[in-house]
């Protein structure tokens, strides 16, 4: 497609109307989060009003919410660390070595993401109940490896494929071992790939709901599960829910926009470059 061609004015307006439609729901959530209760339920809806931070203060002072927020942070970091630890070497091996059944193995790793969560949750729940891993952060991290490992392996395989082999050959001629090559030549050049894999794993762990809903309890809940605690018997406290929602969205949206360039290859696990 000739990307230099410019849309005419009419098409540009259509495009921006569509973009606007996609932006309004999030914008509305944000506006609700900085409205007083009265303003939030005003009809017709108010677009201009005096913003307040009281909803955010209520959420930030809510001890259990912050506890669950921290749980989410810890689970996401641990999931990412485990994913990188196991996935990066595997991705390197799939990229650089040839061995029998390599393609089958690579496809099997990819296919582990296909399993419907409802299939694996029953065994995990029953097993965790027996070995006392229910309602623990460690248990959740282990289950999250079901998606993070395939993710990191495939993304890093794609990234390593893009690095020329000459790099290693040169330093191996100089007498460096394979391990040394990886540590001091390949990894330093893989910054963007590692960063993108890490952020994707972080985002998918942060956003995950199904496993967290079933496997966690009052101690290890993650924040997506906990946000429902603002839906009380008196009704839904929309101001606070919106503020909590925005606080949940902020890290993933910022991280996601940071790795925008790698978003396509990340989300399709390298199927689209």
């Amino acid at each position, binding site marked *: *497609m000739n990307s230099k061609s410019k849309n005419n004015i009419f098409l540009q307006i259509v495009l921006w109307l569509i973009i606007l439609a996609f932006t309004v729901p999030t914008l*509305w959530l944000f506006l609700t989060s900085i409205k007083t209760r009265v303003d939030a339920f005003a009809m017709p809806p108010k677009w201009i009003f005096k913003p307040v931070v009281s909803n955010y203060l209520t959420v930030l002072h809510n001890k259990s919410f912050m506890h669950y927020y921290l749980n989410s942070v810890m689970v996401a970091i641990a999931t990412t660390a485990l994913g990188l630890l196991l996935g990066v070497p595997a991705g390197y091996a799939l990229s650089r070595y040839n061995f029998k059944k390599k393609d089958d193995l690579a496809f099997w790793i990819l296919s582990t993401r296909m399993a419907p969560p409802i299939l694996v949750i029953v065994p995990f729940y029953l097993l965790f109940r027996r070995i006392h891993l229910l309602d623990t952060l460690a248990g959740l991290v282990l289950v999250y490896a079901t998606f993070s490992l395939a993710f990191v392996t495939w993304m890093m395989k794609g990234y390593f494929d893009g690095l020329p082999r000459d790099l290693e050959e040169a330093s191996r001629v100089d007498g460096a071992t394979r391990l040394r090559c990886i540590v001091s030549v390949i990894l330093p050049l893989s910054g963007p790939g590692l960063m993108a894999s890490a952020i994707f794993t972080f985002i998918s762990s942060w956003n995950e709901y199904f496993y967290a809903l079933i496997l966690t309890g009052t101690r290890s809940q993650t924040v997506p599960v906990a946000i429902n605690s603002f839906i009380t018997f008196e009704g839904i406290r929309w101001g606070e829910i919106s503020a909590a*929602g925005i606080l949940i969205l902020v890290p993933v949206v910022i991280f996601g926009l940071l790795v925008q360039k790698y978003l396509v290859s990340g989300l399709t696990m390298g199927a689209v470059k």
Partner: protein
Amino acid sequence: MYSKQCKQWWATIRRVLTLETRLAPFQLLGPLIIVLFAITIFPTVYAIWASTLYWHLDVSAKHFVGIANFQHMFYDLRFWNAFKNTAIFTVGSLICELVLGMAIALLMVNSHFGSRLSKSLILIPMLSTPVVVGLMWVLLYDPQFGLLNYLFNLVGLPRQSWLASEHYALVALIVIDIWEWTPFVVLILMAGLQSLPSDIYEAARCDGAGAWQAFRNVTLPLMKPFISIALVFRFMDAFRWFDTIYVVTKGGPGIATENWSMYGYLTGFSYLNMGYSAAMGVVMLIVIIAISQLIIKRLFTGYNN
């Protein structure tokens, strides 16, 4: 003599540790394979075994029943209702997302006012946490204070409580999915469009093809691999959709928006019928594998011809 042998061993160990031997790929892949095997193959086999059991947690009953769980599905109207909803969710959202996504991608790939900003804004829905997306839309759909009802009123349509209506709740959920995941399709198709060589368009133009003809006969066939990738990934997620449904309708009103994931979840973790829940998971796995293969084969072979 002794120290020489010691040195040799030490040298061998060092060569293994520095990945100098032929074992290297297995050292690098081994840990991943072991962990992945433990957390995917084992649960799958366990679930298949569980699907042959009558297993209720509340009465701690557990005995072998063979294929009874699968036979039960045939007569279970709720299972077929969930199947129907799964199919509607999947087909409905996939078609809309593909058409809308292609339109937006075609508009966005050309330079326009604020290209960079528009590319960032369109990403926000798919980055957002699904639970928050669900709550956001509950707020928008609110029968009294929701923004959507206000807009409906403006154009003279009556107020609706979409999420409480058996007819509209399904559509309301599909709209959420379209909002959340069309950007993903846009992103993939845009990558595809950017990779197409521009000279083929000039050739098509020289042959006198109009814009629509060029799209239909040149762009679309070349975009097949990208369309199939978007389809496969969207299919896998739409088929097992759970989080937003759980937050927005919990499968209600009644069972009007209950899909397989939702029914499977309730069966296992509300009615504590583990055997039947596992059986549903097995059926879902088979369907996912079959349809993914079909999409990949159909579209990719079409491309090669």
